[in-house]
């Protein structure tokens, strides 16, 4: 009889860090291939359309990067928070807070034109930071569970936003629940003519190495890691856990807020109900896929953007429903969590008589 069991590894080989996410994604694609077959399409054709359509033309490639932008921001937001074991499930809400603040500032008629873009970035970041600092304060001061608070605050801000959109921000002409458009001067400049490659994309790509430097080369990043790995030891060593936790939340929330700013100033120029199709939640999957390494966020977010944009082309070409994109995302999270197990354990085969 052959049995296998898990045994703890003495050390983790370097190559494993690359193999694990790749095999997790492959496993997810194989599992979802079953669904494509059930939908009656050729699995290989469907996947070929899915992946090629998102990167094959210059336009499609730019669109994929545009799609990846909010995911990079929310992925980074979750990464920073999870490093400190601040379980921020609220990037979605912080994104909405940032978007609302940006839409508010961007539509102010009284402000000088040059101040609009910096003002939106600042206000959006602060709004996201505030919305994340609230649960962090509750966690450190009253030991309120952060998973619950960050999650529930998403709904509070979403319905607050809807109340605004149905009330004071409602478009008086069309009657749609869309906020007033931001001013022309508030729109992010386009970096590549005749595309939607806006300033936010550049900001997201630049934010990634900055977060990496923060986590890897600064005393603050050191403290965030230490608090996350062992808060008690950090406290005994004289670190101020409350301060570290709240600063972590502020950075995380600000990053998520910037996702909202970028969507408002770069894409929609207003706030409406569907401004985020769950970018905050997808950020969690991306952060896990990147194994909480900031440098892993860009490839992970890009991969997800490919699936999201490619799913529509695939749907048109093969008739497989677009929702497959959501299934792939969810499956990838599960396979990645399983793969993470092999980071610390390995399979050992026993041959017994």
């Amino acid at each position, binding site marked *: 009889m052959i049995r296998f069991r898990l045994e703890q590894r*003495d*050390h983790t080989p370097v190559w494993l860090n690359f193999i694990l996410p790749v095999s997790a994604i492959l496993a997810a694609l194989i599992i979802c291939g079953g669904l494509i077959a059930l939908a009656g399409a050729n699995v290989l054709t469907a996947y070929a359309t899915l992946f090629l359509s998102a990167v094959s033309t210059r336009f499609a490639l730019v669109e994929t990067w545009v799609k990846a932008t909010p995911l990079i921001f929310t992925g980074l937001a979750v990464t920073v928070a999870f490093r400190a074991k601040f379980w921020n499930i609220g990037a979605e809400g912080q994104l909405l807070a940032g978007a609302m603040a940006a839409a508010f500032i961007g539509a102010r008629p009284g402000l000088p034109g040059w101040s609009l873009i910096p003002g939106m970035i600042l206000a959006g970041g602060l709004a996201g930071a505030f919305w994340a600092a609230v649960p962090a304060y509750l966690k450190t001061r009253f030991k309120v569970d952060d998973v619950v608070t960050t999650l529930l605050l998403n709904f509070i801000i979403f319905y607050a936003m809807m109340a605004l959109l149905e009330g004071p921000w409602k478009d008086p002409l069309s009657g749609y629940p869309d906020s007033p458009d931001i001013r022309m001067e508030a729109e992010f400049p386009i970096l590549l003519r005749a595309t939607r490659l806006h300033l936010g994309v550049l900001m997201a790509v630049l934010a990634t190495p900055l977060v990496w430097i923060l986590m890897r080369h*600064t005393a603050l990043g050191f403290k965030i890691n*230490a608090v996350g*790995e062992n808060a008690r*030891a950090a*406290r*005994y060593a004289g670190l101020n856990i409350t301060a570290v936790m709240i600063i972590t939340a502020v950075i995380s929330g600000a990053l998520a807020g910037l996702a909202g700013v970028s969507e408002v100033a770069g894409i929609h120029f207003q706030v409406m109900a569907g401004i985020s199709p769950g970018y905050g939640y997808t950020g969690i999957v991306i952060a896990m896929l990147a194994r909480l390494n900031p440098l892993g966020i860009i490839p992970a977010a890009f991969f997800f953007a490919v699936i999201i944009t490619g799913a529509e082309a695939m749907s048109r070409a093969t008739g497989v429903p677009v929702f497959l994109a959501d299934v792939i995302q969810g499956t990838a999270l599960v396979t990645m969590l399983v793969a993470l197990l092999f980071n610390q354990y390995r399979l050992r085969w026993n041959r017994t008589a």
Partner: protein
Amino acid sequence: MSPPVPLLEMRGIRKHFGTVKANDNIDLRLYPGDILGLLGENGAGKTTLMNVLFGVYHPDGGKIFIDGKQVHIGNSSDALALGVGMVHQHFHVVPRHTVLENLMVGQKGNFGRLPKAAIRKRMDDIGQRYDLSLDPDVRVEDLTIGQQQRLEIIKALIFGARILILDEPTATLTPHETDGLFAALRAMAAKQMGVIFITHKLNEIRAITNRVVIMRLGKVITSLKNDARTSRKRLAELMCGQPIHPPERPVKTVSDASPVRLSLKNICTTGRARTHLKDINLDVYGGEIVGIAGVSGNGQKELADVIAGVLKPSSGQIYINKQLLKQISPGIVQALGVGRIPEDRTGTGLITTLPLSDSMVLPRISEKKFNRSGFLKQGAIRQFVTRLIEQYGIKADGPDIRTGTLSGGNLQKALLARELAWDPQVLLAAQPTRGLDVSAAQFVHQKFMDLRQRDRALVIISENLEELFEISDRIAVMYEGRIMDILPVEEATVSRIGLLMAGVREDAA
């Protein structure tokens, strides 16, 4: 007469981890009625060998026989079915459940009904046979450490263990609890069970075992009968492979002229902890070591937390170098020159999942030495940690290795190096040599003596009385959150300290 069939025989057991040979061709025999001492320093391979026997690890080679028949032990259930039981250093109990509920885990009843009555009866039997009784209906979280260990032993017996492995069972017991454990082990041996007793405490080997197997660096060095010729010194030298020299305590007189480095005045605490400090007054002078004795849970932990700045007293004052603390936090206390070696090395000391270098600069990361306007000076950090690794002889593959891969003794050296690198005025150490082997413990004691020579003040909390008598200048005894008395070591005897630990004052006795 033919020799009796061994209850257990292990032949040629080999197990390696990476390039380290943890077990290199180990032979071991256990006869019915044996209490076999398995003696060796940390990393000698004792625990690995027992984990092989209990089915936790798979040997790379070798055979195991029970009652003369070769057996295969694939996992712990196989081991239990073969009558092998193990009591680990860390107990595997469910704190919120009762004793009875804990004992039912893994037991099968009829038609899915829990075998409550049967287990109660087994508990009574075991209680009478081996003098091991416990109240079945009390919650495990309300048991003392000694009682929890008893629960683990009863659990193994209920599974039908005939071979009982105990991994450093006395590390957390009081002298009295140790006596109780020994009585139970003797009763088991008298009923023809076999006991394997892993330890590195030599006096226990002398007291309880009939045979000793000594391991060093993955090999069996020798196996000998425990008789009059097996002196402690001989055992120690066999175990370490080198002669042993206990640390010298140069005579030092602390006069009124010596500076008071740490002073606690009327300290009381409140809060959730089980024990509250009540009116603690303690002055520690430069150049002296004050040992804190007491049965575990009588306020030593709270006292350590107060000195470390983690626990804020509800009333009273703390002076460090005559300076009154107006605000108390671990950071403030550290800045005033208090070094801390917490009891729980990997819980409140080092961070097992981070690189060793991170663990070792953790308390000082905000200092200019490691930090230029918020950015880490990676070079300085590496250099600092590499130097400490050399200076303290820490066995670690460089500063980047994960902290958790170090052995207990090396973790303690790392913690010691981390705190002593800043030349503390006051050093607080809790259970500084718990779980350490003889040479590592000696190393720690030598460092304490060096600090004492340099007029630093040391507060050493320990449940090991022998240790306190060896290194302290004065011994304070805690009982129910109070300091019962402070005796100069010359006037202290084990019986005087023992009475105070039990809460009896001499004038009352």
